[in-house]
């Protein structure tokens, strides 16, 4: 998936020359670790499994992609659970905004694995039914997988070399909820701080946000606290949807995938729908983009990602407008 994503970036912009890779991941090559463990449990033969081990570490898919693209530059893998992809984009944004880097390839990836599947099942966080974010009848998340990368570059430099500018990252907020390793504080303070900090980072008011691509896993706990925090900050004025209702939850890749969806929403002038929606949780009054996409002129989008360990990240993504 990482190789496919990096090939796509190279195809779209062959001249993009990153000085660093910042990639979010949480499971890494877990499936290789599982195969190794099962071979041990079965008393299987040695040695032939060495290749599995080499692919276990989360840096390996990144290294493979770097070698494929010829990017012999530093890479860092941020493993902040399900916020990892947004953290990677957010920190890349900070480095570029502050002049420490000119161009960074950033994003995230994760692949389905049995361990993660069984893990969410053990927590009764996953569902065998349809995934219904923010719905009163939501019963849990459905796992997904994927990779997404952004070629993030200093604005002036990108314009000077004639790059096609798809959009702007203008704000990043991060917070840590110290309440519990898997459950957010019921007040929604963690998500709220991340969103407030992202808005402050972008220098914009909540009223100026046109759409929120929510974390929206459809678990009882996430949606309760995220919904509360969104309602507190934005009221019901801003359309909200969770595209995990269609894509599933790609964990470390989710934030990056949803950043791309946010860019596409801006470009296409469409609010992506929150499918499988029947009725809003009565705990809050939100403008959910229920079941069908809506046409809209979008200039500024907020994208949320939250994860185990109480890690929360929000990105502000804006239209390139006349930037090209």
């Amino acid at each position, binding site marked *: 998936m990482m190789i496919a994503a990096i090939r796509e970036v190279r195809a779209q912009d062959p001249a993009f020359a990153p000085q660093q890779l910042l990639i979010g991941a949480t499971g890494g090559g877990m499936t290789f670790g599982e195969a190794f463990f099962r071979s041990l449990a079965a008393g299987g033969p040695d040695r032939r499994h060495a290749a599995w081990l080499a692919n276990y570490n989360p840096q390996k898919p990144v290294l493979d992609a770097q070698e494929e693209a010829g990017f012999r530059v530093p890479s*860092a893998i941020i493993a902040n659970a399900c916020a990892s992809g947004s953290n990677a984009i957010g920190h890349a944004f*900070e480095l570029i905004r502050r002049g420490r880097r000119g161009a960074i390839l950033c994003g995230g990836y994760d692949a389905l694995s049995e361990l993660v599947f069984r893990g969410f099942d053990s927590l009764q966080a996953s569902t065998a039914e349809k995934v219904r974010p923010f719905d009163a009848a939501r019963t849990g998340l459905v796992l997904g997988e994927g990779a997404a990368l952004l070629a993030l570059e200093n604005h002036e430099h990108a314009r000077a070399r004639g790059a096609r500018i798809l959009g702007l990252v203008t704000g990043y907020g991060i917070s840590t909820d110290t309440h519990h390793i898997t459950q957010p504080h019921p007040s929604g303070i963690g998500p709220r701080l991340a969103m407030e900090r992202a808005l402050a980072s972008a220098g914009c008011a909540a009223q100026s946000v046109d759409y929120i691509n929510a974390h929206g896993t459809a678990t009882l706990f996430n949606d309760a606290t995220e919904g509360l925090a969104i309602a507190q900050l934005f009221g019901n004025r801003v359309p909200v949807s969770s595209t995990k209702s269609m894509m599933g939850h790609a964990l470390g890749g989710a934030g990056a995938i949803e950043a791309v969806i946010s860019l596409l929403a801006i470009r296409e002038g469409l609010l992506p729908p929150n499918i499988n929606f029947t009725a809003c949780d009565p705990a809050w009054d939100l403008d959910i983009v229920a079941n069908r996409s809506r046409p809209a002129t979008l200039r500024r989008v907020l994208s949320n990602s939250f994860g185990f360990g109480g*890690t929360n990240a929000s990105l502000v993504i804006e239209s390139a407008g006349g930037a090209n």
Partner: protein
Amino acid sequence: MDAFITGAGWITPLGTDLGEVWDAILAGTPAPVRELPGPPGHKPHFAVSVPPRLVDSVARHPRLRRSSNISLFAAVAALAALRDAGLDPASPGNCAAIFAVSDGGVIYTRKFYDQVVREGAGSPLLFPETVYNAPGSHVAALLGLDGITYTLVGDASAGLAAVELGIQLLASGQVDHCLVAGAEEADWVLGEAYRQWRLSSSAIQIGSNRGALIADGAAAIVLSRQGRYLIESVSGGVPFFRQSEAAASLAAALGQLPPAIAPSRAISSANGTFVDRAERAAIEAAYGPIPTVYPKISLGDPFGASALMQIICAVQSLRRPGPAGSLLVPVIGLNHQAAAALISNRG
């Protein structure tokens, strides 16, 4: 902007006292090797491990009493580093926390997946501790940090990447201090994995290429804008795609350091694998032969924590009377990157 190391703390197989462990390293005293508990009928694996009593001070904390060793180690090291920096762990102020791990919470990961394989389901008490950022989450909760917390995963070079990230955060003005920690825990399944990868051994012998001796432990430093022990420079990580490229990658990393600074001593990352020759070749090509300390002879290799342990060794070296100068911290990981740092006493 200058970044200084203002506090250090560690938990190692040889103890937690900075001075005593440093003395043992200088003397080449090896930590006791023990056999890791493993399934019956399988090959034995060995490690140098942290004595359980060393985590007593944090093990009963409500947030930590069910956590894996790696989180306990990270907590002990982090609290010690903050105290060494003169910061109150109950109120460390505007402080970020960056963690580096390689294999992470492998004990609970192995236990959880073993339940899945044998019984078709795993315990919900174990699964949350399998995520790489579990130590970072627990330590942030312990310290009440509601801001920036990152966990970087990679080989040993992740420790220097974490230091670089911490310096970036300090330079941005977002925080006043940054806690940077590395942690790792040993387990039989790691021993088996590295054995099959031909990278582990039951003893460490520098230059032998027989393999690394797996270890557990944690190390933490506090970075601030003022202090005595200056991080002159940290290179970016230079990737290598095969082991034969490791020396060239470290040479490229050393080439990023200020050429005017000639280090008086190196704190080596040599661990009994291909790393040893690659590191020596790159250092000698850049600086000629320089006195070198080999901490992993004493501490084994706690992969994600090892670079931070090297940095603390450098600080301890600078804290002792002796020739002034800068210390080189070279790092070659096993399967990701090479990197290097220079540390000086500006007191």
